[in-house]
């Protein structure tokens, strides 16, 4: 479970996140929507422990990310929008690195890494240095690394950027599987269609403030548009 209470983050006089509060239950896929610069990435960075909140709290699986960062990090996985990885490691070595850092038993790593590489069609490139991987391949490798460690909470920041259509479809299936296994999924995305089809709940952040949160149907009901309402209508209406 992910829980955020009255979270605020300021940079100088600029409030990137302003009094944000929300919860994501185990097994829930939460879509975090908002225009560029609304505060999505800042929120997810605070949750992942790579940024500190100015005030308020954020916890993952009951661990406060500011007070018990190591315990929180052990049970969560984070994938940023830019898949920066170690350029001089191979794909195989990178997954072993993540496995070792997150204490996945060696035998399990040796069994699961080849499976994951197959799943993401990276097996043929597993021995190549990551500097030769494309953006999409790196993204797939990072998603594979998340599956390797079986986290209780997953934080994705624009996870499908750079993925080909086939990989996007596979990613959607995997996301559903991760949630079915009981993990809370927190996903920042611009792809409203994907959020509408995949997420159980969505929240819209605008200028650092959460302006709405609820199930997809609840949020869609907020639009004044006539006829078949979409998440896009609501999004555009609320962030104008």
């Amino acid at each position, binding site marked *: 479970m992910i829980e955020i209470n009255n979270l605020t983050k300021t940079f100088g006089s600029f409030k990137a996140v302003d009094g944000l509060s929300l919860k994501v239950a185990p097994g829930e896929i939460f879509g975090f929507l908002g225009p560029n610069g609304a505060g999505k990435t800042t929120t997810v960075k605070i949750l992942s422990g790579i940024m500190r909140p100015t005030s308020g709290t954020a916890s993952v699986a009951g661990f406060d990310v500011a007070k018990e960062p190591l315990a929180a990090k052990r049970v969560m996985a984070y994938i940023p929008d830019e898949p*920066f990885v170690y350029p001089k490691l191979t794909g195989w070595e990178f997954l072993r690195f993540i496995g070792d850092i997150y204490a996945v038993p060696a035998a399990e790593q040796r069994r699961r890494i080849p499976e994951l590489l197959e799943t993401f069609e990276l097996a043929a490139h597993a021995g190549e240095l990551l500097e030769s991987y494309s953006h999409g391949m790196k993204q797939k490798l990072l998603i594979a690394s998340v599956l390797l460690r079986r986290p209780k909470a997953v934080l994705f920041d624009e996870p499908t950027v750079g993925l080909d259509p086939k990989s996007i479809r596979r990613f959607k299936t995997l996301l559903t599987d991760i949630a079915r296994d009981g993990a809370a999924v927190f996903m920042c995305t611009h792809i409203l269609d994907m959020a509408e089809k995949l997420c159980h709940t969505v929240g819209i952040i605008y200028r650092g403030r959460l302006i709405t949160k609820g199930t997809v149907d609840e949020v869609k009901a907020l639009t004044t548009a006539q006829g078949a309402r979409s998440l896009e209508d609501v999004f555009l209406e609320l962030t104008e």
Partner: protein
Amino acid sequence: MLPVLLKRKVLTFRNALLGLRGWKLVKNLLFAGVGLMMLAALYGGFWRLLNYLEGVELIGPMLSWKLTSMVLLMTFSMVIVSSIIISMTTLYYSFDLKFLFSTPLDLRAVFLDKALETVFYSSWTLILAILPYIIALGRIKGLDAGFYLAYAFLMAPFVMLAGAVGIFFSMLVMYLFPSSKTRDITWLLGSLSVAFVYVIFRFSKPEKLLRPDSLEIVAQYIQYLQSPTAPYMPSWWVTKAMVAYSAGNWAAFAVSAGVLCAAAGALYLLLYALAGRLYMRGFSGAQSSPRFKGRRDTLPEQRLAARWPGLRAYLTLYWKDRLSLSRDARYWSQIILIGALIAVYLFSIRQLPLDTADLRSMVSFLNIGVAGFVMAAIGLRFTFPAVSLEGSSYWLLKSAPITTAAVMREKLLVSLLPSLLVGFLLITVSNHLLGADLFVSVLSTFTILVAALAISVMGIGFGAVFPDFNVENIHQLESSYGGFLYMATAMGYLALLLGIEAWPVHMHFSERMGRPNPWDLRGLALCAGLFVALNAAALYLPWKAGARNLERHEV
């Protein structure tokens, strides 16, 4: 098109200047102030040297011009080698190149923009370093402000020419072998050539220049002084122009300056023309990665981690660093430079004209400071950048269940062993060469091992206080504010260390000279206490500050 590209650099520089406020401004002013003090100290040294040379009867003026031509020749060679290494990044791997190539800009304009960037980065530190020499030369020769203006005017085509040679080499090599592997080989060759020039220069015993008695015939010496130093090199043209200016020979000045400017103009025209044909092929090839086939073996560190799970985080980071660094030619090729540095160091020790055993032992003690300086210089290149070398991938560690202190400890582990080995090697071999007595040998060996630990800890600590995860190459880190502070602190530490040990060493030499009751036990205890306090501070303060800063650092 080129003015548009240059304008963005001017705007970037202006914005950086305008962004200097508060603590940032104070920090930069302090940095500039200390830099100026160092330049002033260099000026003092050069002034004394040139004053001495100028005072030598008959040949004094010749000597100072000869030395100037050698300094300029060295500068020219260093800018060429630097520009080869730097152009490999600026011309083929800069962050903004993909964007620039996607715009409707003329390819040759992009090339020229990057060529100017290369010349700037490969020459600015050298230009700054020889500035005190030129100012001292002008003062010794009693020349007016016009001399400095003439020098500044000559320097522009001079460094442009040197940079052009390096850029031409890089472009040709990348055209003939368009692959990212070429970059690695060029970096390796660059390090090799710097090491070669350095070793050859030192082994040629340049001190002979200042000792005419070492040449058998005086006429031969004068002939050597009068002969041009590499007459077809631009460094000689600059020297000739400066000599002509100082003699008020305007025609000769105009000829030399004209040749210099014409050569620079011609070379850039040639480069401009060639870039249209050669640059794209090299750039395109540089984007491809060499084939690499990694293995899936279990690594020794992973076997150890299975046995000692408590060390898993350290061992995992260690094998990651070991593999990454061993595959990065930029990093390991620098080991050649360290080899050259050590060879020159030991050669210089061997050449020292020391006659008595006491003098040799005394120099062995003072040698701790020099060996420490070498270790700090190596630390600036390897230990200080260790944290920043995590680069854009640092988010992986920041979001992983590892403390920043553990990351720092692992980086220390990587740096410490080589540092201890280098320190031990430098001190024991030089003690052997100097024939130091047992007391000094034991004291210096113990001290250098402690200093190796302290300097390594300081390197990681300062590296964590001033991390920069966005740099394109290690040189930017070395010449940064943090790198400078690290070196200054390491020097201060070594000076204090020698100061504390000077007293017991004095007692030891008093005993050797037969003075009765030379040992003052209270004095010894005080020195031991100060030694412990100094090292405790050196080990604790930078580390603590680094750990705290890295913990707060947001990516």
